[in-house]
């Protein structure tokens, strides 16, 4: 199993470690509820070093990236970040990615840990005919996310970054704990304000410990993959392998805003246009579920006793204290207020109460949670 430079820090903090996409990662330090609340009300620290960071330079690199992604790289301002998908020829999602535009000189793609080898191979296969250099800087650098309403206050204490000037989905370079040229972006995966820092691997443990020390008075603490998942789901953000897969087109996942069909060309555009013209068969919806039991990925979504859809993600929302889920359902049923049934037959032979075996799921707007003051 692969590990990040922060493994010893996680173990020192008593984290429960799990295998996540081949990476030895912390799932919780205390419990999901507490870590989730910390991010919604104070600030939580995440180790996101396992994500892939690919650095592109060269004369044609912008043209090349625009061939690979659904969003528009060429029109990005220096220091801007955009969310995008990388598609196969059939319009299926290979990965969802953040694109960092460093002017005309360079571009960075941040890809999901589980997709790193696949995306690296894909890039190599498509680069023929382009003057482009791609460097995998994933292992030379580590990445720490600060997420929550106190993130800016914490960053202000330890860096020279002008957090007032750094807008959402922008990045800059600054000195953090005396280390120059740390890449700081106002991004995250929790639905809260926050920053992600990319620093040399050798500095990661020092950053992590000091962020916790300095952040103590602000209520900072570590947060694991468990809370990361409940936070992103409340915020309606897709997780590759759940809301996105190679057979899912981004329009089906409700990511139209990240797919620029007016762009000249990109791999998967033709297929996406065809899917759009024909009309979507399935669409992703948010479900609010009455009851105690959590539907899991792959579980059937029923209407009038018949299977019509499939659960993508399910959890107990720590913030709403309700069971929530995402599911793919027929496009003509993807309307707020539509109701479905979920069945939980159970392994125990005890006759479960009817409400424990069958729960009603109601389509609600996504996201489930919006931070105060955000439109």
């Amino acid at each position, binding site marked *: 199993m692969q590990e990040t430079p922060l493994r010893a820090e996680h173990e020192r903090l008593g984290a*429960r470690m799990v295998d996540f996409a081949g990476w030895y990662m912390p*799932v*919780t330090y205390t*419990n*999901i*509820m507490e870590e989730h609340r910390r991010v919604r009300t104070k600030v939580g620290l995440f180790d996101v070093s396992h994500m892939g960071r690919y650095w592109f330079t060269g004369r044609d690199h912008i043209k090349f990236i625009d061939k690979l992604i659904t969003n528009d790289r060429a029109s990005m301002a220096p220091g801007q970040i955009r969310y995008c998908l990388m598609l196969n020829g059939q319009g299926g999602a290979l990965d969802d990615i953040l694109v960092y535009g460093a002017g005309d000189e360079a571009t960075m793609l941040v890809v999901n840990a589980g997709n790193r080898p696949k995306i690296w191979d894909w890039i190599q296969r498509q680069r023929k005919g382009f003057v482009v250099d791609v460097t995998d800087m994933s292992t030379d650098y580590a990445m720490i996310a600060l997420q929550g309403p106190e993130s800016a206050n914490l960053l202000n204490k330890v860096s020279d970054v002008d957090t007032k000037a750094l807008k959402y989905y922008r990045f800059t370079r600054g000195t953090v704990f005396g280390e120059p040229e740390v890449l700081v972006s106002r991004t995250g995966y929790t639905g809260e304000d926050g920053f992600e820092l990319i620093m040399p691997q050798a500095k990661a443990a020092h950053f992590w410990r000091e962020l916790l020390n300095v952040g103590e008075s602000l209520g900072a603490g570590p947060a694991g993959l*468990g809370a990361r*998942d*409940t936070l992103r789901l409340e915020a309606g953000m897709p997780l590759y392998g759940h809301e996105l897969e190679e057979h899912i087109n981004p329009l089906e996942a409700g990511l139209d805003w990240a797919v620029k069909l007016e762009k000249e060309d990109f791999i998967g555009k033709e297929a996406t246009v065809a899917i759009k013209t024909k009309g979507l068969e399935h669409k992703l919806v948010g479900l609010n579920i009455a009851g*105690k*039991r*959590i539907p*899991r990925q792959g579980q059937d979504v029923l209407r009038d006793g018949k299977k019509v859809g499939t659960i993508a993600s399910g*959890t*107990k929302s*720590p913030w709403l204290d309700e069971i929530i889920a995402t599911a793919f359902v027929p496009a003509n049923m993807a309307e707020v207020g539509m109701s479905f049934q979920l069945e939980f037959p*159970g*392994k*125990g*032979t*005890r*006759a*479960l109460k009817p409400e*424990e075996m069958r729960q009603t799921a109601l389509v609600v707007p996504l996201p489930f949670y919006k931070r105060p003051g955000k439109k």
Partner: protein
Amino acid sequence: MARPDNARYLETHEWGRLEKDGTVTIGITDFAVDQLNDLTFVDLPEKGDKVTRGEAFGEIESVKAVSDLISPVSGKIVAVNDGVDGDDFSALKKDAFGAGWLIKVKPDNPKELDSAKSRADYEKQLAEEAH
């Protein structure tokens, strides 16, 4: 929490203990409770049901996952802990080897328990899993 010496342990983190009255009490270990962490639901069988050694008799759900509950012995269920069934996990969290027991079984063959691990072997397994 001290794990009892007089219980036997499964690799899947259930424990079974032969009581003086000949029944076997079955539960999950403090380690399992800690790993599952954010528990949401427990589904247990009914009194009178049969359980089979090595097979699931119920499941336990947490925010992250659903796990089978595996029986260390075959036999007939003579009692189910109503204090745990459903969604109250305080007994499990406080006292996994006492008030947090799950079911009591009249075993077909109490010797089956011997093939489960001793406390020392189970703790060796935990130590190995931690590395």
